[in-house]
């Protein structure tokens, strides 16, 4: 028996030599196998196990610190923005047009809020269907070669500096014409597109292959399977991906400087007008450079509004998702 195990006895020998006499004295407990470890010792960790537990505890602690640090950074940013912006935040600030003469006290950022909502909504309307279709193509229909090529292209697009995208859209839609909310939406849609497509693709890959097989085996065409089984299963993840992209797109500033920085100071909802749409990121940018002391506070105020906008969007998406998802 021992021969069959080869080198094993050497490992267990120390424990075995100690255990052997003890077991022999008690005898009649059945056959005694030489080289069996002593099972009667203390159950508290010792030796190597003790050492590994210490390392494990240390590593766990470092991870917790890292996680807390990330949350702390978020908390500090949110706190400092809201604390400094709070002085200007008021119903008046949210609902009034800015003063006619820039830098003058009073007035609100209503056109900026409305403009940002319009620009981002239009960008989402462009990027979300395209992004989902791209993700569906990559996961459900494309062969291995085209899929990896498209994935690479999307990653490159994701890495493109937003000012470059802004410049591109500037040349495409603004040169020879004029700035517009639509141009800004196109640029932001280009920024959002790879985010939505890649995140949606990851979610679609999480849909178990067994569900697709089940649907295939029912003799239902593939696109119906995608629509009826794959998409509903992945809906939550797709919504989350879109909200993250919206959050990213809503804060983009560089393209807006080129594409939507000239606008009137009244509320406009027309992205196809003769001038750009007012928007919060550009407002923050200009106000923070303003000579007037109050301008800085107003920049913080606008920043808190932008943060709230993103927060509300995420919360609404979460609620909508939990309402529609079938749970156990």
């Amino acid at each position: 028996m021992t021969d069959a195990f080869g080198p094993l006895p050497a490992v267990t020998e120390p424990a075995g030599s100690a255990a052997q006499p003890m077991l022999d004295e008690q005898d009649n407990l059945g056959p005694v196998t030489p080289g069996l470890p002593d099972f009667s010792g203390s159950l508290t960790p010792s030796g190597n196990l003790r050492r590994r537990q210490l390392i494990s505890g240390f590593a766990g602690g470092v991870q917790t610190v890292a996680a807390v640090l990330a949350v702390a950074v978020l908390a500090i940013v949110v706190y400092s923005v809201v604390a400094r912006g709070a002085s200007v935040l008021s119903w008046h600030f949210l609902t009034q047009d800015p003063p006619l003469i820039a830098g003058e006290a009073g007035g609100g950022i209503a056109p900026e809020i409305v403009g940002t909502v319009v620009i981002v909504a239009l960008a989402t309307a462009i990027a979300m269907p395209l992004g989902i279709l791209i993700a569906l193509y990559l996961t459900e229909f494309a062969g291995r070669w085209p899929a990896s090529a498209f994935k690479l292209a999307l990653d490159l697009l994701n890495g493109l500096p937003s000012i470059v995208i802004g410049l591109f859209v500037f040349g495409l839609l603004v040169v020879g014409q004029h700035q517009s909310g639509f141009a800004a939406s196109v640029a932001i849609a280009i920024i959002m597109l790879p985010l939505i497509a890649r995140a949606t693709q990851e979610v679609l890959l999480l849909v178990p292959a067994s569900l697709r097989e089940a649907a295939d085996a029912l003799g239902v065409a593939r696109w119906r399977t995608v629509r009826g089984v794959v998409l509903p299963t992945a809906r939550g993840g797709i919504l989350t991906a879109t909200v993250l992209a919206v959050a990213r797109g809503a804060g983009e500033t560089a393209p807006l400087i080129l594409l939507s920085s000239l606008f009137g100071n009244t509320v406009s909802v027309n992205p196809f007008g003769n001038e750009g749409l007012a928007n919060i990121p550009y407002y923050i940018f200009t106000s923070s450079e303003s000579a007037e002391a109050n301008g800085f506070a107003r920049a913080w105020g606008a920043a808190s509004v932008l943060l709230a906008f993103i927060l509300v969007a995420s919360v609404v998406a979460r609620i909508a998702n939990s309402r529609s998802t079938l749970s156990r």
Partner: protein
Amino acid sequence: MRPADPSEAADPGAPNVRRRVRINTGGPAPGTPVAPNGAPTETSRGLPAAARRSSALTFGREAIFDVRDLDVYYGSSQAIGGVTMQIHRNLVTAIIGPSGCGKTTFLRSLNRMNDSVPGFRIDGTILYHGHDIYGGEVDAVEVRRRIGMVFQRPNPFPKSIYDNVAWAPRNLKMRDGLDERVERALRAAALWDEVKDRLHQSALGLSGGQQQRLCIARAIAIEPDVLLLDEPASALDPIATTLIEELMQTLKNRYTIVIVTHNMQQAARVAERTAFFSLDVSNGRRTGVLVEYDDTEVMFTQPADRRTSDYVTGRFG
């Protein structure tokens, strides 16, 4: 000494298994040229086992599937070779054999579920009511519409119980009397009484056995011709397994059933006809072959092939 565990027998690294299989090969000795279709023995070459012996069960019964010289390849490796067999209407046909012998590959070839596997390729023909399933004009979706499948692990959609059953009929333009159709399918799958009060709750809240019966209900809701069951009870407890086995006895009046199973007792209990697949390891290739195919009773009491008797008596695999 050696446990009769099929998964161990299929382990390519176990040398004694390889030796054992070679000894048991009733066909050509190693080195002897095998038949061109890759079948090593008299049993599976040329005449299918079914044609060798007259069977009261198949006499005058329509053959739903007529498989001729089927070879299946995944890339460069051959999964099954030279399978010739007929599957008859309203019988339960079991496919047994050790792991890795191509049972599931064969089953999935019957309704083109292997199409999406990269490198999948077949030689030979599978005739279904006389139509070549892999014919140029044939669409896999139409094939699967007629030949349903239930998988090893229960895979209900993350939808309500009702929607699980109703989804395919809705998509296949069978919307009239949908409620009745759902009820009929659930009754046929012996699930109705357990779920009739919670049809609109998630199917994921059901137990494993209930989920598997739901999958059967889902498959028969579109009234297919054939049901392919791929080890439908292997993930279930004995009571749920018994329920599924009883279910098959009623379903065979309406459907033609092909079941792949690991479990010989299950095959003996549920199937009228049994096909035994095994691994042929000659020439250093491991290919699944049909060793013997006959009435279940014959297969378990007086099999013609040595490998079959070794397998059904638990001597290997």
